[in-house]
C-alpha cells in the first residue's frame, strides 16, 4: 500500500504530544497552567515598569470534582483587543521572540493550557484585557482550531472603558488533580513572592487565602530588547538577518555593526581582517559557503566584547534580601549579585542569597531555592547546576554544621536559560554559569560565616565562665579530701582567681 502524506498544524502536533510541554497528567497540567498564567502576568507588569498586583484563584467545580477552574488577574500592560485571539488561540504566536529576558520564551505555554482545557473539559478560555493607551476593554471566549492553528472565537465583546483599568484576566477550566498538585502550587506562589518582593500576590484556593503583600515599591530596571551576540550565531541566523535587513547596499562591516551586540567599527574591521573578508563586501552578495565561513569565524574569534546586560533585569541584592526575609523569616540574610557574563553569545547575570535561623527549620542539607528569569524552579532539583554546586561545598569551612537552618537562593538571569529539558525545571551545568554561581554562593556563605563567627565569640566568653564554675566544685572537694581541708576555703580562692581572669576579656556582638 502507498503512504498518504500530510502536514500537521503546530496545535495539532502539541495536542497529540502534550507531554512534550509538561502537560503529561492532570496533576502536572494544573501546576503548569498556574505557572504559565502567573508568569505571563508578571511579564506583563514588571517588564514594563508596573508594580505587579496578581490575583490567583483556584476553584473546584461543584458537580465535577476532577474539574478545576483557574483565574489569574493582573494589572499589566494588557493585550490589544485585536491581538487577544492570536495570543491565546495560536501556537507559536507571541511577543517574546526577541533577545530579552522574559519568563515566557516559547510562545507555547498558555496555548498548551488552552488546548488542555478544551480537550479535557470542552470549555473555552475566558480572556479580558485592556492596554494602558486604549479606551476599550476586550472580552473573549476562545478555542483553538487545532487542525488549522488559528483562534476560534466563540464570543467576543469590545466595550468602552469606564475606569482607568489596564491588565489581563484569564480564566479556564481543566481536568486537574488539585490534591496532588496543591503543595507544589503553593510553593510556587510562595517562591514567586520571594523573587518578586515588589509584587502583591493574592492566592485563593479551596484551602483558603494567602496574601503576599509587596515589601518594596522599588522595581528593577526592566530589560530592553537587544541584539544577537556575534559568538552565538549560526548560518540560519545570518541568513535571516540579511533577509530582514532589506538593504542591498549594506556592507559586511556595516551589517556586523548594525545587527550584533557590542560590535563597533574598530572591532568589525579587526574581525573581518582576522577572518579574511573584505569589509566593503555587499552582504547580499555573500554565498552560502561564505556564510558558513563567516559563522564559523564569528564563533571562533576571541576578541568579541562580553554582552552588555541591557537585555537583563536582575533583582539586585537589596530586593533579593527583602524577598528572602519576608518569605523565609530568618534571623540572618544576605544577598549578592555578580557582574554580567556570557555563554555562547547569551548574556547572563547571577544572584545569590543565604538565610540562616529564625523560622528556617534545621535540615541535614542546605535548603535550596532556585530561580531562573524570576521563575521558581521546583522540579528536578537533583540534576540542577545549583544543587551540584551546593553539594560540592564543604559547608563546615563556613561554620555550618548539619543539621542546620540554612537556605540558599540562586537566581540566573539570561536571554536564554540553558534548561536541561523542555519542562524548564533544571539548569544545565554550563561552565561559565557554574563558575559565576559558585563564586556568588561562596560569597554569601562567607558573609554568613562572619556573622556566625561574631555570634560564636560572644558565647565563647560566657562559656568559659560557665565551664570553670561547672568544675570548680569537684576540684575543691577533691583537693580538700586529699589535703584534709575545708572545701569552701578552696572554692573561695578559686572564685576570686576566676573573676580576675574574666576581667581580662569582654566581647559584644551586633547581630
Amino acid at each position, binding site marked *: 500500500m502507498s503512504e498518504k502524506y500530510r502536514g500537521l498544524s503546530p496545535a495539532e502536533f502539541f495536542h497529540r504530544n502534550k507531554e512534550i510541554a509538561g502537560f503529561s497528567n492532570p496533576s502536572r497540567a494544573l501546576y503548569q497552567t498556574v505557572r504559565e498564567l502567573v508568569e505571563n502576568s508578571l511579564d506583563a507588569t514588571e517588564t514594563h515598569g508596573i508594580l505587579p498586583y496578581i490575583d490567583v484563584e483556584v476553584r473546584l467545580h461543584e458537580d465535577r470534582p476532577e474539574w478545576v477552574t483557574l483565574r489569574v488577574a493582573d494589572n499589566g500592560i494588557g493585550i490589544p483587543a485585536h491581538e487577544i485571539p492570536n495570543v491565546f488561540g495560536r501556537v507559536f504566536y507571541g511577543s517574546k521572540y526577541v533577545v530579552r529576558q522574559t519568563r515566557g520564551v516559547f510562545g507555547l505555554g498558555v496555548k498548551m493550557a488552552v488546548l488542555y482545557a478544551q480537550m479535557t473539559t470542552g470549555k473555552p478560555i475566558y480572556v479580558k484585557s485592556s492596554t494602558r493607551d486604549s479606551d476599550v476593554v476586550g472580552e473573549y471566549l476562545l478555542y483553538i482550531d487545532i487542525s488549522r492553528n488559528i483562534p476560534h472565537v466563540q464570543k467576543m465583546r469590545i466595550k468602552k472603558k469606564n475606569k482607568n483599568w489596564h491588565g489581563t484576566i484569564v480564566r479556564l477550566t481543566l481536568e486537574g488533580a488539585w490534591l496532588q498538585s496543591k503543595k507544589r502550587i503553593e510553593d510556587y506562589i510562595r517562591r514567586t513572592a520571594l523573587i518578586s518582593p515588589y509584587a502583591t500576590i493574592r492566592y485563593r484556593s479551596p484551602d483558603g487565602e494567602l496574601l503576599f503583600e509587596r515589601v518594596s515599591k522599588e522595581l528593577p530596571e526592566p530589560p530592553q530588547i537587544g541584539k544577537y551576540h556575534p559568538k552565538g550565531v549560526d548560518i540560519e541566523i545570518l541568513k535571516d538577518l540579511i533577509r530582514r535587513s532589506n538593504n542591498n547596499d549594506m556592507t559586511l562591516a556595516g551589517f556586523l555593526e548594525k545587527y550584533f551586540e557590542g560590535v563597533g567599527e574598530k572591532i568589525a574591521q579587526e574581525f573581518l581582517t582576522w577572518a579574511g573578508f573584505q569589509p566593503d563586501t555587499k552582504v547580499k552578495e555573500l554565498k552560502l559557503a561564505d556564510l558558513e565561513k563567516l559563522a564559523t569565524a564569528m564563533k571562533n574569534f576571541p576578541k568579541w566584547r562580553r554582552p552588555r546586560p541591557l537585555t537583563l533585569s536582575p533583582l539586585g541584592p537589596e530586593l533579593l534580601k527583602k524577598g528572602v526575609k519576608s518569605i523565609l523569616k530568618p534571623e540572618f540574610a544576605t544577598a549578592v549579585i555578580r557582574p554580567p557574563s556570557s555563554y555562547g553569545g547569551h548574556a547572563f547575570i547571577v544572584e545569590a542569597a543565604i538565610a540562616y535561623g529564625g523560622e528556617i527549620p534545621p535540615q541535614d542539607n542546605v535548603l535550596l531555592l532556585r530561580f531562573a528569569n524570576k521563575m521558581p524552579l521546583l522540579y528536578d532539583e537533583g540534576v540542577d547546576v545549583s544543587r551540584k554546586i551546593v553539594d560540592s561545598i564543604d559547608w563546615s569551612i563556613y561554620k555550618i554544621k548539619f543539621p542546620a537552618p540554612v537556605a540558599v537562593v540562586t537566581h540566573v538571569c539570561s536571554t536564554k536559560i540553558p534548561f536541561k529539558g523542555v519542562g524548564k525545571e533544571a539548569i544545565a551545568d554550563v561552565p561559565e554559569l557554574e563558575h559565576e554561581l559558585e563564586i556568588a554562593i561562596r560569597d554569601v556563605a562567607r558573609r554568613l560565616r562572619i556573622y556566625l563567627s561574631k555570634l560564636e565569640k560572644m*558565647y*565563647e566568653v*560566657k*562559656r*568559659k*565562665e*560557665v*565551664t*570553670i*564554675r*561547672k*568544675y570548680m*566544685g*569537684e*576540684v575543691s*572537694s*577533691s*583537693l580538700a*579530701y*586529699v*589535703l584534709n*581541708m575545708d572545701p569552701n576555703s*578552696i572554692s573561695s*580562692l*578559686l572564685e576570686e*582567681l*576566676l573573676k580576675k*581572669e574574666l576581667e581580662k576579656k569582654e566581647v559584644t556582638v551586633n547581630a
Partner: protein
Amino acid sequence: MPKNTQQAGKPISPSSEEVLARLEQLAKSIYDQIQSGKPPYLDIPVRTLANTIWDKKRKLLVLGPKTAKREFFDIGESKRFMQTILMLSLIVRARRENDYPTIRDLYYTGKHTIYYVNEYGKKVSEETWDDQRESNAVIQDIEVATGLLREHMGIMHDAKGRIVGNMIIRSKGTEIDLSRMGSGAWGIPSNVDQLEITKVEADYVLVVEKGAIFERLNEEEFWKKNKCILVTGKGQPDRSTRRMVRRLWEEFDLPVYILTDADSYGYYIYSVYRSGSISLSYESERLATPEARFLGVSTSDIERYKIPKNYIIKATERDIKRAKELMNYPWFKESKRWMEELQLFIERGEKIEIEALSGHGFKFLSNVYIPEKIANKEWII
C-alpha cells in the same frame, strides 16, 4: 651478669607511705598555686611520639623533657584538670583504706552528675566522665606526674599471664615453688613488684604468645627437660607478665626468647616485650626487656623449615600496613636482620602460625625447632 644484682629478687614496690606521700604532694602543689594567687595548673609530661626518645644506650623508649601545662582556667583543659584531681582523690582514698580497686571500680566511683546552667541560660547536666577512656587517661596522667605505676598505687587489672619453671617466689609471706604446679601453672598477679623472687634455676626464659602452646609445652614438661622458665601472656601481654619477664632478665640475667606466630601481630607482640608501646613510653623502664630475643616463628622459617604451601596464610592489607609501621620502630630500624625479616614478610605477603610446625610431627616444636634455634643462635634481635 645480672643487670641489677644488688636488688636481685627483692620486692621493688614503693611502700604505702611513700606512695601516699607522692600523691598528696601533687595536690599540695596545686593548692600552693591557688593560695599564692596563681591560676592553678598541672605540669604533666607529654605522652606523645614527639616527647618519646629512643635511648640508644639502654635500648629503651623513654619520656623526653617536654611537659604540658594543664590549666584549670583554660576552657579546653578545665574538665581534664578536674578529672585528674578527682581521680587523685579516689586513689588516695583507696590507699588510705587499703583497698585494691580495678580501673573500672575507679571509673564508677568517680562517675557522677554535675548540674549547672549553660551559656544560653538552660539548666543542663554533665558527667564527671562519660567512658572509661577518660578515666583511664587521667590515671596515666597521674602515673607520669608522680612517677608511680598504677600497680604501685594498688590498682588491679585482669592478669592473664602464666608461669612455670624452677623458681621460687615469696608473696605475702608464702614460698611458692613454680616447679610444683602439676599440670597447672602459677597465675601471675597484678603487682609483680611486690613479689620476691628468691630462687631461679634456669638457662633462659621462653615466652610463648599462645596460651594453648603454653599448655602443651607445660604438659610435656618442656621447662624441666630444657631447664627454662616458661611464660605466656596469652596474646598481647598485660603489664604484669611484661614486668615478670623483665625482672627475670634484669635481676637474674636470663636470656629471654619470644615465640610467636610469623605475622605482623606476632612481631608486634615481640615488640611489646622488647620496648613497649610508644604511647606508654613512660612505662618502658620497668616493663620492657630490651634484650629480648625473637626466636620465631619468622617469615624466613617458611623456606628454612619447608612449610607446606597449604599451611601458609595470605597476609591481609592490615598485616602489611602494620609491618610497615613496625619498620619505623627504632629497635627494628636499627636491626639489619629485623629489617630483612620485615621486608621479606611484606614482599611475600605470607604468614604462618606456630602450629604449622606440627606438619613435621607433634613433637617437632619442642624437640627440634626450639632447641636447635637456641643452640644455633638463630634468634633475631
